[in-house]
């Protein structure tokens, strides 16, 4: 799957990975309580597997940019305790599949300590983690597990679609008072785009209309936003105008923006890279059905990857992954339906 760059007008074009680093840098410069910890993140260890933290330990010191052993439970646990004690830790878990090693800390502790303490404590941590299929990283380095976290009340789950979104949303996560899971699609680290103003935050829980359209609403997040925009441009040449909504925050998600759009278009397609079964698309589709049942011109379509482990061979990975053709087919299906 190829990736899509944002339209560029200005000079401040940076990559998605650089945008993440900028957010970390701005947050650390703004607040001495912000620190980061994770595997290989210091400059002595090459500045992180995806180089997102490159330069930060040199600028801020290894006290605030702490390279850890390969100990995911210890990383998240340390972030949780420090957060309750007043810090704003950003923990990097190299790959999303490795968050499974720390699920007890994330699900039983980070997500619930505020509630279980009756608000006596809070856990303002951000967990940055990278993942995604398309480059042959196989079944244990590619999974999109956002629905696992979105299924846990107490966590916020965020997935940016572009450099500007990455920077603005990561800043908001770091300064949010609740635990945030920030998912970076590793195949778009090289995507270039323009940034907003320095320090500009994008509020959590608010979706963005990435493209206006009157016939069909396409709801996507992360890398699926760019793919959906490409398909929408192609279909526009045939007179099918798709509205593309970038969800940005998966939990809690912006029901109002989605329902308002689908209320107008009467047609919806939900697109994500994660496998279809019990996914984010199922939740959004069910909500649209509950709220707009009588008004819909067609059943909500879900575009997702197949219900399989991610295969290694490119020949199989292609079959596993959702495609632009899938999006196009789904949009045509709902667009063709008349009331």
């Amino acid at each position, binding site marked *: 799957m190829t990736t899509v760059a944002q339209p560029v007008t200005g000079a401040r074009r940076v990559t998605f990975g650089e945008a993440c680093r900028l957010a970390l840098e701005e947050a650390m410069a703004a607040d001495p309580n912000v*620190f980061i910890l994770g595997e290989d993140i210091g400059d002595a260890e090459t500045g992180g597997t995806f180089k997102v933290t490159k330069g930060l330990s040199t600028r801020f010191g290894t006290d605030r940019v*702490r390279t850890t052993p390969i100990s995911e439970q*210890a990383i998240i646990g*340390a972030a949780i305790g*420090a957060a309750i*004690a007043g*810090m704003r830790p950003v923990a990097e878990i190299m790959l999303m599949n490795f968050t499974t090693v720390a699920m*007890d800390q994330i699900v039983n502790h980070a997500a619930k300590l505020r509630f279980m303490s009756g608000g006596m404590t809070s856990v303002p941590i951000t967990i940055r983690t990278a993942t995604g299929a398309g480059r042959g990283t196989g079944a244990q380095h590619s999974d999109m597990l956002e629905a696992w976290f979105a299924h846990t009340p*107490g966590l916020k789950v965020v997935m940016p679609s572009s450099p500007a979104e990455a920077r603005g949303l990561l800043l908001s996560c770091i300064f949010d008072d*609740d635990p945030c899971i920030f998912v970076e699609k590793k195949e778009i680290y090289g995507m270039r785009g323009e940034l907003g103003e320095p320090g500009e935050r994008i509020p959590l829980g608010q979706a963005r209309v990435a493209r206006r359209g009157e016939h069909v609403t396409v709801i996507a997040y992360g890398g699926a936003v760019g793919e959906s925009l490409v398909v929408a441009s192609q279909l526009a040449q045939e007179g099918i105008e798709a509205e593309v909504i970038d969800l940005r925050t998966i939990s809690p998600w912006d029901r109002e923006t989605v329902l308002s759009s689908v209320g107008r278009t009467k047609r919806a397609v939900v697109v994500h890279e994660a496998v279809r079964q019990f996914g984010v698309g199922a939740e959004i589709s069910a909500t649209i059905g509950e709220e707009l049942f009588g008004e819909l011109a067609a059943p909500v379509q879900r575009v997702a990857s197949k219900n399989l482990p991610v295969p290694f061979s490119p020949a199989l990975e292609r079959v596993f992954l959702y495609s632009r053709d899938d999006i196009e087919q789904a949009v045509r299906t709902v667009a063709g339906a008349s009331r």
Partner: protein
Amino acid sequence: MSVPDGSTLLDIYQTATTIRQCDERFLAMLTAGEIAMTYYSPRGQEVISAAVSANLQPADYVVTTYRGIHDHIAKGVPLDLLWAEFLGRATGTCKGKGGPMHITHPASGLMVTTGLVGAGLPIANGFALASLMKADGRVTVCNFGDGATNIGAFHEALNLAALWNLPVVFVCQNNLYGEKTPFARHTKVAHIVDRATSYRMDAVRADGNDAEQMWQVSREAVGKARAGGGPTLVEAVTFRFRGHNFGDDSSYIPPEQMARALTEDSVPRLRALLLEAGHATEDELAELEKQVAVQIDEAVQFALDSPFPDEAEIRRDVYRDEVTV
């Protein structure tokens, strides 16, 4: 090594006897059917918490586990708020939303009580890391049982604490049973302190029923952590007299082991020491115990008189902002 003076030992006794009397009250009320909850008795571990806490400042942090009421009381969580939380009342430490397994009272330094075996250790490191970075001079004490030493989080946390020289004291309250399986059937490692060797962490094994020894050992470990000397693993050996939880009749514990343990029971032992050393008279101890009973009466009454949480409470504290449900 310094020894605790009479006044310190009396303080430890007062804490330990408060824990024991609270435990007896819970067991009596549970047996009578007056209250209902999953209850994990601390019986046998009272002096460990009391002696460790005697070396802590109010601002120091404590992390503990579901069998934790002795740690809560020792760190100074107010009895009325504690009882109210155990009974699920709106006036409890956590507004009734945590319950016995999740007591949190930051004003007392009691930061986390977890229901997951071993999960407290990585989090305790975080408190200690914050203290290290802020140079606030606080020490974190993390309590857990022998059962926690065979779970991965224990090893990840010990390694990181040693590596980063964190101001944390890990107190393993070894009561010789993990759930219903005896210690020797969990591991071939003879002593829990042996685990620390591989992480190059200082460790000390102590008689958890000996108030003087527990005070000395924890004083040294806490002092070292506060002075920048890094973490210590303390293994406090004791016994678990009242089963894994209320309703467990301990039928799997050999009667002779139970009988032998009773002769070492920490609270009566400390009481005898106080009398023998002339730190207190029988009348003075009886008076102290009576006063503790009155305090517990008041705490129980406060809890029973307190309302249950309003249903609207369910929407609060999931996130900072209220949720709709």
